[in-house]
């Protein structure tokens, strides 16, 4: 080899290395996201949605040396629920209402911002929330509050295509981070408080063309339609024999995917109307269920309904966490799930078979399960409290599963109850279709109730209304291994790492590093505003970083050098 050819080869190798650094995010990379922990390629960290990273630079021993490396301030007020993606040193994240920001993951300096102009008629129940992005190739995908799906060039921030997912004037929206599976972008629709008929839909990643759609409320002649029963002769006048048309079943948190089974799993939200269940006789499938769909066709493979005929707004939109565990001595491809209804579940994710059901907080809406996992419901008398309350024992915020500890970690609201009361409500397009007058269960009449969505700087409801905790549960049994109590409730997601460090926030504005094995506090920082999203971790130039979003601030921490 000549000196010139050696130089040329070196140049080519350099170029190849450089290319590798900026390589496209292929479907193969997504399927193997766990093998490149320096990046965070999918909303929940990987298709199994474990929010678990193999990075080990930050350990229980050195977590006390964490320090702030950089901050990014969003300009728009309101809860910031997004999970960033990190791809080869570039961070992509959404901010209210539907902006996308690309920035240097090492310094926080911005490359570009894309701003989607929302249709002013967009209708959302609970704030201008967006939970993040998906990526495939060099294209980012974002769902919008006005129910569109937009493909965006990851290098320039320019839109590539923009397709309609649903009718925003009827209350449809997309607030979740899309999930890319092979050549498709999968999203679900929000709007469970507006009498929508929910669905999960897949779009061709190149063109934006809809490929398949699975309605979470089955129509006539479809399996499950008989769970929407006709009104009996003695029914109340507001009973609706066509309730399925406005049956809810929103899908507002990202699902999971098992490449080996080619099944994609999605949690389905509450039935509509939320609280007056007498208007919709029957179990109301597939509300409050998990559905397993063929990723190529959207066909239903199996379902499990957590809360049949829900009268409590117990959305089952929690992230389906996939884990290969040993259950009663047998290896099982499992799905582990802490539900808003206060129960922890283990299901066989190949078949949907019910394996475990066990309360992780106080529960009095049901008492036992039959062998198929159907709960025996114990509706409380009028005026009496139901545990857990309307916001649930947990909610949309991401749990974590650590294969290293075998524990499942969840943010829980403890000792929290609501006095439910259903009232008749007539469906009107685009109008709230809640059908309830609920009250916080309060220790002192007239005392401030626990705010469902936001808190101010003063905790004036205190421990008397509810408290929060991170619970570590045995993923195979639901047995509590440890509990990290908080004075206020927590809406924060959870991250664990192979070094057995657990990161989480809370409404009080603290960002914690906790020993994932024991539940002891390793380090904390007071960030000043509630943390309502999930932390992620990534690596740039050999240094591990961890994120926390508090109020309007994205804070990124690393070890002191």
């Amino acid at each position, binding site marked *: 080899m000549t000196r010139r050819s050696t130089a040329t080869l070196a140049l080519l190798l350099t170029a190849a290395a450089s290319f590798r650094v900026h390589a496209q995010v292929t479907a193969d990379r997504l399927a193997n996201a766990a093998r490149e922990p320096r990046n965070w390629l999918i909303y929940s960290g990987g298709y199994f949605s474990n929010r678990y990273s193999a990075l080990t630079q930050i350990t229980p021993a050195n977590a006390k040396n964490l320090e702030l490396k950089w901050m990014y301030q969003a300009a728009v007020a309101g809860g910031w629920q997004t999970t960033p993606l990190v791809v080869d040193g570039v961070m992509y994240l959404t901010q209210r209402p539907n902006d996308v920001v690309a920035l240097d993951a090492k310094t926080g300096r911005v490359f570009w911002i894309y701003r989607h102009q929302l249709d002013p008629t967009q209708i959302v129940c609970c704030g201008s929330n967006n939970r993040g992005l998906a990526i495939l190739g060099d294209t980012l995908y974002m769902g919008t509050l006005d129910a569109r799906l937009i493909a965006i060039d990851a290098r320039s921030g320019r839109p590539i295509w923009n397709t309609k997912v649903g009718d925003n004037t009827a209350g449809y929206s997309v607030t979740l981070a899309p999930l890319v599976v092979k050549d498709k972008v999968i999203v679900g629709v929000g709007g469970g408080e507006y009498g929508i008929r929910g669905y999960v839909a897949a779009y061709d990643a190149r063109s934006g063309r809809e490929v398949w759609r699975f309605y979470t409320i089955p129509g006539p002649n479809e399996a499950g339609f008989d769970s929407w029963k006709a009104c009996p002769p003695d029914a109340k006048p507001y009973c609706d024999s066509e309730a399925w048309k406005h049956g809810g079943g929103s899908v507002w948190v990202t699902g999971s995917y098992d490449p080996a089974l080619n099944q994609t799993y999605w949690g389905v939200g509450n039935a509509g109307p939320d609280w007056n269940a007498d208007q919709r006789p029957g179990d109301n499938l597939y509300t409050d269920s998990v559905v397993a769909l063929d990723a190529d066709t959207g066909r239903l493979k199996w379902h499990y309904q957590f809360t049949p005929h829900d009268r409590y707004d117990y959305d089952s939109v929690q992230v389906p966490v996939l884990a290969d565990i040993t259950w009663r001595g047998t290896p099982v491809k499992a799905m582990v799930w802490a539900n808003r209804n206060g129960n922890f579940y283990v299901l066989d994710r190949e078949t949907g078979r019910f394996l475990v059901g066990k309360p992780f907080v106080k529960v009095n809406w049901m008492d036992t399960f039959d062998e198929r996992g159907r709960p025996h419901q114990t509706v409380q008398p009028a005026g009496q409290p139901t545990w857990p309350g309307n916001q649930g024992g947990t909610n949309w915020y991401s749990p974590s599963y650590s294969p290293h500890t075998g524990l499942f970690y969840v943010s829980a609201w403890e000792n929290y109850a609501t006095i439910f009361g259903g009232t008749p409500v007539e469906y009107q397009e685009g109008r709230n279709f809640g059908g309830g007058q*609920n009250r916080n269960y309060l*220790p*002192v*009449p007239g005392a*401030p109730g626990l705010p469902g969505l936001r808190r101010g700087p003063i*905790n004036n*409801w*205190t421990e008397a209304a509810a408290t929060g905790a991170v619970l570590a549960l045995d993923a195979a049994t639901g047995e509590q291994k440890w509990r990290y109590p908080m*004075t206020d409730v927590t809406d924060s997601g959870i991250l664990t790492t192979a070094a057995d460090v657990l990161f989480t926030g809370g409404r*009080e504005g603290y960002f914690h590093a906790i020993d994932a094995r024991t539940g002891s506090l390793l380090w904390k920082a007071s960030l000043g505003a509630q943390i309502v999203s999930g932390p992620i971790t990534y690596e740039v130039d050999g240094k591990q970083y961890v994120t926390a979003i508090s109020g309007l601030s994205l804070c990124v921490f690393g070890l002191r050098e």
Partner: protein
Amino acid sequence: MRAHPLLSCALLALALAPARISGQAPAAPPGDYAPADIAYGSGIYDAQCTTCHGANGDGVGGVNLRSGNFRNAITDLDLGRVITNGIQGTGMQAFRFDAAELAGIIAYLRNMNSADRGSAKLGDPARGRALVEGKGGCLRCHRVDAEGSHVAPDLSEVGALRSAGSLLRSLTDPSSQMMPINRPVRAVLRDGKVVNGRRLNEDTYTVQLIDDQEKLVSLAKSDLREYTILTTSPMPSFRTTLAADELADVVAYLLSLKGR
């Protein structure tokens, strides 16, 4: 807990602090409305509503407020919404009432047909003020505008925050109305120093309070040997020490405290 002398003095309830009121709670069952709320609401009704609705509630054609059936409202929440927002395209305007006033009006509307307006009286605010500042000794712990102590909750706008019924119960059964945030706390530091105070805010690791010397104190729980939150109000009941008329006078005065 051994009560500090200042805390054991005759003081108005720690319970008297910002809170949502019963009138905003949905669908209270009939009979759940405090006579003091009904009485307070009747006075506001007379002043604000009779021009259109008349003293008997039937002054608007096709509307009879005494019937207990409201065309645009099923629950108390609905009633409050109608009063606060008005009804577009009709003569029903939007009213700006504070929470105590709204609670009173709703209580009165719910009981218009049965309320004996002679039996529940609000009392005289001027006499109530004299009681608060004199015989009741309330300002030894509470504060109204620039007068009094900071040890117990400030009452300067309690009339906009608490319903009449809640205020009366605060005077006769203080612990039942004490807001959880106002609970007295006792902290013992590692060196044995004891801090007694009223809680202002709390999180997992710290607590903020005003101590019995009226100082703002922030404590790290990790520095404490003991930390106790008490559920009994240090305020005495006035059930026997004030006559019924005097209690009504004090409630009338407190309801007049709307802040600045």
